[in-house]
């Protein structure tokens, strides 16, 4: 993250969304159920957050069939990774200046 240009991103700044994006940044992909349980969100809250991030091009979701069950997997896109890196760099820069 040393070469990342600091840039605040209002879309991912809310705590819940930032947690979600940071979790996805640490994974290649994660299932809906995993994110819901680990981040302590309801189904509808997580769906809403994922939809907002997907609309911005930060997250991509896939529906996969696993043992007869349809599962939703989410992953962070390269735009999402750049946004997170820039936002974290901006936050760190702000703190470094205080």
């Amino acid at each position, binding site marked *: 993250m040393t070469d990342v240009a600091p840039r605040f991103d209002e879309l991912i*700044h809310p705590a819940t969304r930032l*947690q979600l994006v940071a*979790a996805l940044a640490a994974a290649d992909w994660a299932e809906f159920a995993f994110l819901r349980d680990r*981040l302590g969100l309801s189904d509808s809250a997580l769906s809403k957050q994922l939809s907002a991030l997907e609309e911005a091009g930060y997250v991509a979701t896939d529906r996969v069939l696993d043992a007869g069950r349809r599962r939703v997997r989410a992953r962070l896109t390269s735009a999402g990774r750049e946004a997170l890196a820039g936002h974290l760099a901006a936050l760190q820069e702000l703190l470094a200046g205080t």
Partner: protein
Amino acid sequence: MSISPDEARAALAAAETGRRAVADEVGLPAWYWWGLGACWIALGTIGDLGTWWLTSVATLVFGAVHSWVFGRVADGRRRTSLVTVSREVAGRRTMLNVWFLLLAMIVVGAGFALLIAADGARHPGTIASVLPAAIIVAGGPRLVRWSAGS
């Protein structure tokens, strides 16, 4: 966008919480450790039978199956089927450290078997295999977590 230092700290903490939720998933599936421990004892028992060809075949089969399984799970990124941890978060040392653990257990098992054989035990292979198997089941998951720095 105007953010106060306290808000910035809270945001960084939130990001760390999210990252940690995934980082805590670094590890190998439980079935790998239990299966490896069981196979270890089975190999010790087969060795005690004293049938050289059976011991050789069992060792070769175990080696082939283990190397196939190991190549798929030893990077620590797929402990569960719910998430695949990124390579950066899982760390590069995980697979290497699991290898070192297995090599160390071979040495410990062989040394222990020689000791109890010298003491006149009737089934040194079986008895000696229990120690490394227990270390693998109990210590393997901890080693991987330590490797990943969680």
